[in-house]
């Protein structure tokens, strides 16, 4: 069988996970100039600089702009070829907007996105189309992201068609290959989304993303909607595909346990900015931002013998339409309170500072974080006082 996607291949270069070239069909380009850029790991595949996405709030009698949501507000990071870079944060922190801006599914307001050495921020739709093959996305909701009126063959085949694979037979073959790749049966092509379980639908979503042979896949909460026992099946699949197809992932999640298990590097987002970024090993063991400390402390551990006292943050996440002045986290910051509310936190916005080994933190007082300061913050907090930050 001339299988095109040979996951077991030990030589990824020999069997590129790229488009299938079927004889006699008007297939996609055989030579793939972009592949050159990612030969050799450790190369920067994606570079994001100063990225901003602001949404206008339209309202009032005259439907004028009455405000701005600063969803993503100045974000820098690099993603190396072959690594899994995770973005974590709570809802409203801008992680999904960021993920979609990178793919230009929504147009960024400012900043640059460089993919495989090429600035793609301002290129036209025509120029972007061939690049889209290389950058795919897996959506969170396996129920909402598949068109209920389309059979699987069209759901997965649509992208192939748009990318120029006009021959029906070739397309169907590719669809079947993709299904097999994600552990579904080839016969499923004629079925509709409602005939599948949640886990299977998510596999279809993954097959759709992989059919085009991408280099980088944005995984937007790919397992959040799934039951625990199904979650691990999908995570294992993503890990296998990463290894076999040499993929780079941008993994967006609010689940810190999954991120810890799954990724190489992680960026913690808060209100549209990156608060801390670093290798998982470093960041989980030695967090340098008070927000990261609180996030890690909030993970519920299924082992009751490892039960610990939590550091509970006060109040809610402020609205991204009116982010606090100075450090965005200062309204909920336990460290600032411990230090006697220094003025700097509410006046000067902290920039990312290097702590070695690519570990960066945006906190003026990152050096003050220690086991002792965390322990004493845990002791002094009383949970019934936590719901402060009342908008006047």
């Amino acid at each position, binding site marked *: 069988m001339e299988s095109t996607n040979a996951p077991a291949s030990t030589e990824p270069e020999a069997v590129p996970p790229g488009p299938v070239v079927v004889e006699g069909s008007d297939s996609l380009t055989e030579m793939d100039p972009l592949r050159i850029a990612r030969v050799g790991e450790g190369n920067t595949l994606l570079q994001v600089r100063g990225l901003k996405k602001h949404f206008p709030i339209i309202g009032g009698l005259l439907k004028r702009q009455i405000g701005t949501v600063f969803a993503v507000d100045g974000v820098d990071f690099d993603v190396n070829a072959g690594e899994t870079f995770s973005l974590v944060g709570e809802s409203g922190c801008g992680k999904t907007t960021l993920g979609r801006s990178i793919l230009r599914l929504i147009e960024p307001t400012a900043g640059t996105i460089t993919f495989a050495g090429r600035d793609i921020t301002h290129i036209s739709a025509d120029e972007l189309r061939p690049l889209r093959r290389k950058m795919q996305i897996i959506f969170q909701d396996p129920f909402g992201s598949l068109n209920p009126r389309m059979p699987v063959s069209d759901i997965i085949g649509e992208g192939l068609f748009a990318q120029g694979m006009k021959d029906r037979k070739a397309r169907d073959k590719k669809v079947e290959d993709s299904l097999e790749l994600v552990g579904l049966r080839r016969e499923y092509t004629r079925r509709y989304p409602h005939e599948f379980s949640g886990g299977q639908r998510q596999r279809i979503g993954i097959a759709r993303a992989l059919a085009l042979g991408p280099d980088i896949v944005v995984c937007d909460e790919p397992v959040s909607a799934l039951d625990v026992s199904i*979650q*691990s099946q999908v995570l294992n699949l993503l890990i296998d595909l990463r290894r076999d197809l040499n993929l780079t992932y941008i993994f967006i999640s609010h689940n810190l346990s999954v991120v810890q298990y799954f990724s190489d590097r992680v960026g913690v987002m808060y209100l549209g900015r990156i608060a801390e970024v670093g290798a998982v090993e470093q960041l989980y*063991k030695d967090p340098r931002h008070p927000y990261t400390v609180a996030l890690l402390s909030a993970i519920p551990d299924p082992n*009751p013998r490892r039960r610990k006292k939590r550091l*509970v943050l006060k109040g*809610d996440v402020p609205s991204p339409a009116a982010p606090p002045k100075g450090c965005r986290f200062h309204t909920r910051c336990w460290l600032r309170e411990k230090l006697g509310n220094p003025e700097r936190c509410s006046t000067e916005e902290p920039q990312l500072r290097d702590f070695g080994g690519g570990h960066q933190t945006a906190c003026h007082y990152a050096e003050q974080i220690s086991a002792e300061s965390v322990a004493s913050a845990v002791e002094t907090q009383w949970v*019934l006082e936590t719901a402060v930050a009342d908008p006047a």
Partner: protein
Amino acid sequence: MTEVIDAPAPRGAPPPDDVLLEVRDLRTYFHVLDGTVPAVDGVSYTLKRGKSLGIVGESGSGKSVSALTMMRLLDIPPAEIRSGEIWFDGKEILGMPMEEMRKLRGNDMAMIFQEPLTSLNPVFTIGDQIAEQVERHKKVNRKAAWDRAIEALQLVGIPSPERRVKQYPHEMSGGMRQRVMIAMALSCEPKLLIADEPTTALDVTIQAQILELLKTIQERTDSALMLITHDLGVVAEMVDNVIVMYAGQVVEEGTVDEVLVNPRAPYTMGLLESIPTVDKRGGRLSAIKGTVPNPFNMPPACRFEPRCPYAWELCHDKGPDLYRAGAAEQRARCHLHTPAGAGRLPEAIADHDRRMNVGQGIV
């Protein structure tokens, strides 16, 4: 050794006085177009006064239906309570007239729902909604009921409650709404608080707030807590005892420490193995193969058998009961804990331990 634990208790006898809630052999079935779904199929458990019980399971395991049956909030039909008794505070409530049940609900037993936005009425103020039930149950006037509402909001840590009572649900954040739900549940000082996935819709840091709040409140008011969740981490931190449900049945029960540290039912073992933890980083998660069984076509004997890595012929022929397993209070629904399975047990446990530590962790 093979003592059958879930044999139905003799009917009619009320449980001892320190037991607040006792459910005996409850069977709730749904009659739908395609057939009959045994959503809850022979479930028994007890909850003592002031204690907490976690009910864990994936979607479709019957954990929510068992709570709704208890509150008598199911429409009959399509639901049918085929058998069972529920003793609450010395009274059997399944056979109770609805009029009497209404006096219990919201008063002695109160429920916190998963979705605070859809569970609150958008056209009434927070104060109206809390005061309504205080007025009804405690037979006080409007003014006293509103004062009680303000007090309840204060108890759950909502700042300036005098102003908040006059607000509508849409004026509040998700975490704040969940606090309102808790305040509402607490307003009549219930003996039993049922929380159905209370933090699933919330962010991590807000989840931490709400969990701490529930814990503090339970300690202070000395009410019993029944926590329904799919999150084993939440269970580990919140409750004394836990039951694990699968396909409408209890597959394991015991103290949190027993069940989550040394699980003895293959389903619980598999569930814990599949959760990503720091110990598994760098290794491969072991996944439970297959999917939950079709409720119209349950496996004939053990319901977990088709997915079970330890199953043998017996499991296909005869459904297991709950057997004493491992530690003192622990029971598991698995033939491994009968003489027939005793030879296979050590290997299964060794297998589980290996799968729990597949990775190198963070070094």
